[in-house]
């Protein structure tokens, strides 16, 4: 029988019950919001389970919501290539404690993806073998994808964009 996202939800609920904070369907993607502490266990379970076999990490990326209590977030997208099912996992955590356990033990591809996320969002992946910047210069002292860094130089006074709907 073909695997469906309903079946994935059922199995996850059975195994992790309270650790799943939220389940929503975003367009064609079933999205599970989880507790940060359990993320590796959940992904390991999804990877190892005979029926689920989510053995391909499509992508992962960081997110920043400055207005929320838990400002930073991580998004993981997993893919079961046998049955062609994709799911998305999310975790949120406060910016003061931006530590997430690393996925490199399960997926080799997580290595650079996590370095990229660290580079741009300052999320530290504990246990990562080579946690340093990847695309930006090494002595950069901020994390540019965070929302407080405007793309244009804030000290410029020669441009007035208020007429064009920008602040």
């Amino acid at each position, binding site marked *: 029988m073909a695997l469906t996202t309903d079946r994935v939800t059922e199995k996850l609920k059975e195994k992790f019950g309270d650790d799943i904070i939220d389940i929503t369907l975003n*367009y064609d993607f079933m999205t599970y919001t989880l507790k940060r502490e359990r993320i590796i266990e959940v992904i390991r379970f999804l990877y190892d389970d005979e029926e689920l076999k989510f053995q391909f990490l*499509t992508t992962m990326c960081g997110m920043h919501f400055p207005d929320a209590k838990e400002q930073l977030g991580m998004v993981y997208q997993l893919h079961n*290539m046998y049955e062609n099912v994709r799911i998305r996992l999310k975790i949120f955590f406060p910016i003061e404690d931006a530590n997430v356990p690393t996925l490199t033990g399960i997926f*080799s591809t997580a290595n*650079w993806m996590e370095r990229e996320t660290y580079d741009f969002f300052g999320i530290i992946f504990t246990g990562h073998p080579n946690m340093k910047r990847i*695309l930006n210069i090494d002595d950069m002292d901020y994390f540019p994808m965070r929302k407080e860094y405007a793309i244009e130089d804030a000290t410029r006074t020669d441009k007035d964009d208020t007429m064009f709907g920008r602040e």
Partner: protein
Amino acid sequence: METILDIPIHEKEYSYLNLGPTHPATHGIFQNVLKMDGERIVESESTIGYIHRAFEKLAERKPFYQIPPITDRMNYCSSPINNMGWHMTVEKLIGAEIPKRVQYMRIIIMELARIADHLICNSVIGVDSGALTGYFYLFEQREAIYEIYEEICGARLTTNIGRIGGFERDFNETTWRKIENFVDVYSKVLAEFETLLNRNRIFVDRCVGAGPINAERALNYGFTGPNLRAAGVDYDVRVAYPYSGYEDFDFNIPVGTNGDTYDRYMVRSQEMWESLKIIKQALQKCERTGPFHADIPDFYLPPKEEVYTSMEALIYHFKIVMGETDKPIGEVYHSVEGGNGELGFYLVCDGGRQPYRLHFRRPCFIYYQAYGEMIKNGFLSDAILTLSSMNVIAGELDA
């Protein structure tokens, strides 16, 4: 016979070689520090980011219709696919219905782009193994493809082709003629090119067994596209998650077995034939006149003449340019089969003028990290071939 490999490790002297960042054989700005034992690579470390341009950050300050030029500059060998990927992501977000004709026109462009991408990669493998003739022969055909782009959108390399909802204008007579002509000529040229390399003794000796990776490691490293298929996994986004009407077409997914340079070459070569097959089918299915964009006035700019004469068109024009159009709040992921793998767009929209967050799943960035493992214990000259056969495009790698 005692070789250098039999000397105990503590007595060996290793040499370090700095390959790149701007070495002509790396076709882009890639730095690899290699620890060498004679000609053999013991260890390597890649440094990337030399042409990083902060696309994800830039995208957070641009209205949706200004993002295609950013995507152009990722995999610039097949920029139309990137453009279409972005248009389709937005169309998915807003739930736009795209007419069949537009979808087929897009498929023609995307398959032409795939051919342009693969032909560069394949002919460059030839160059790096010492066969320059095939490269010059095929490059003329890339010119033919660029002329088709030029006819459609006016640009050649960084195309910014199409719009959200369709195309900016219909294909003209010349375009159709050029496409038909290209399909005709290219099948002959490609067949000749294959006789140059496919069974060429020197080429085969150089490529077989160079930089191999097995299916398990390839999946673990997140490989997609021709590199994954060369390792024997038949994953193709066009079949797994059909978009833009690919489900209406009849084509095969070529796969390899060893995942070495020769398999990657052959998979790309076969894919070009499949692309030609798709274009031929699309030419049959696609009427020469008809709608060339969807009916979504909130996102598709009205014709300029109407802007000057009709109130409604003027309002829409203003709304689009100023970013006043209402957008659904949500998050959407859409992926297309790019020139070298699954090119994904993860878009978070808060209803504002610009994307709240836009993440590009760039296939190059993801699979290039396996390079160190693939060239380990191989020769330096194999490492060069491996790099060119992986089709790593610096623009996409560094984004």
